[in-house]
């Protein structure tokens, strides 16, 4: 058979295609449990970070959204964690936010994933920025470039105002959703 005949060409490509598809199926099946475990582990860590003291986490569906309710050892609900995401400067920012429903405030936030610029926008993962939201009451947040004056002010990272504003917007949106799902206070 002629080496460069059309039949031979198609045959070669198909054989390579089939072999690679088979091998990749195997790789996918081998690695996907680990990948899922990694994601679950990340999420669990983030929930524990934003709801400190929670012993058990219960996943609840409300209005088509998933909330994670944290309970203490004696069965008291400590707070609710909610995963929200939105566009950042470069890509999607994914946050886990812990809420204190009773006192209408945010416990703490944790950044699950982001694609912001290292050294600038990526500093949303640092304590200095995240501490803006520790024990923050619900309300209309205002991003400022100077040290925060009122308790609703959020101090932007210098040189990364856009990342700061977008992150704040994701949190604002989460506050709206949580008040809608859990109502105001008790």
């Amino acid at each position, binding site marked *: 058979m002629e080496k460069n005949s059309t039949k031979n060409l198609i045959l070669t490509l198909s054989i390579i*295609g089939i072999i*690679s*598809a088979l091998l*990749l*199926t195997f*790789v*996918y099946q081998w690695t996907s449990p680990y990948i899922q475990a990694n994601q679950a582990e990340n999420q669990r860590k983030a929930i524990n970070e934003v709801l400190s003291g929670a012993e058990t986490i219960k996943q609840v569906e409300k209005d088509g959204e998933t909330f994670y309710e944290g309970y203490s050892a004696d069965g008291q609900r400590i707070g609710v964690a909610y995963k929200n995401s939105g*566009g950042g*400067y*470069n*890509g*999607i920012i994914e946050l886990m936010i812990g809420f204190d429903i009773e006192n209408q405030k945010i416990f703490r936030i944790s950044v699950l994933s982001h694609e912001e610029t290292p050294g600038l926008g990526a500093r949303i993962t640092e304590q200095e920025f995240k501490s803006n939201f520790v024990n923050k009451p619900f309300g209309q947040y205002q991003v400022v470039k100077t040290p925060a004056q009122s308790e609703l002010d959020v101090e932007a990272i210098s040189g990364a*105002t*856009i990342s700061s*504003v*977008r992150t704040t917007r994701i949190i604002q949106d989460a506050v709206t959703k949580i008040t809608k799902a859990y109502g105001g206070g008790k």
Partner: protein
Amino acid sequence: MDQFTQILLLFISNVLINNFILVRFLGICPFLGVSKQVETAFSMGLATTFVMTLTAAATWMINTFILEALNLPFLQYVSFIIVIASLVQFVEMFIKKTSPVLYKALGIFLPLITTNCAIMGLALLIPLNGYSFIASVVFGFGAGVGFTLAIVLMAGLREGLSFGDVPGVLRGVPVTLIIAGIMAMAFMGFSGLISM
């Protein structure tokens, strides 16, 4: 914000703010290789924009109707590269038959486009951002226009530079990279233009 405005903003942001070459670092090879003359750079940009728009449409359909529907995410890279390679081949044959003039202008660039990472990057960014079909096509087109803008600007600068007195060791690639760095700084000025 209504849908039309959003699409328009997506377009502008991909041309100026998230420029594929200067901010996302996609398509550097042709940017350095084919930016010696404005005319050829423009043709390259045109060919790339054309293929990018088509690629956005084709890979969106493949990803949505085949890969996601059948739950085959691990075949994404393999199938995208095949789609791009065959698309480029198809465009080449089509242009050759219909418009010899256009083929003369773009012909030599088309094979290069297959290994242009801007195209593959585009295909990969679409599922990552979860764009709709129309948004994907606009994204592809905007990215192509941004690519053309950057490469034509660079070619213009290099044409001027050929008369300048560049230190020997910096001639060629190094000075091109340094100019690109200054251009990237200039483009950073656009970064606050749109807040979506």
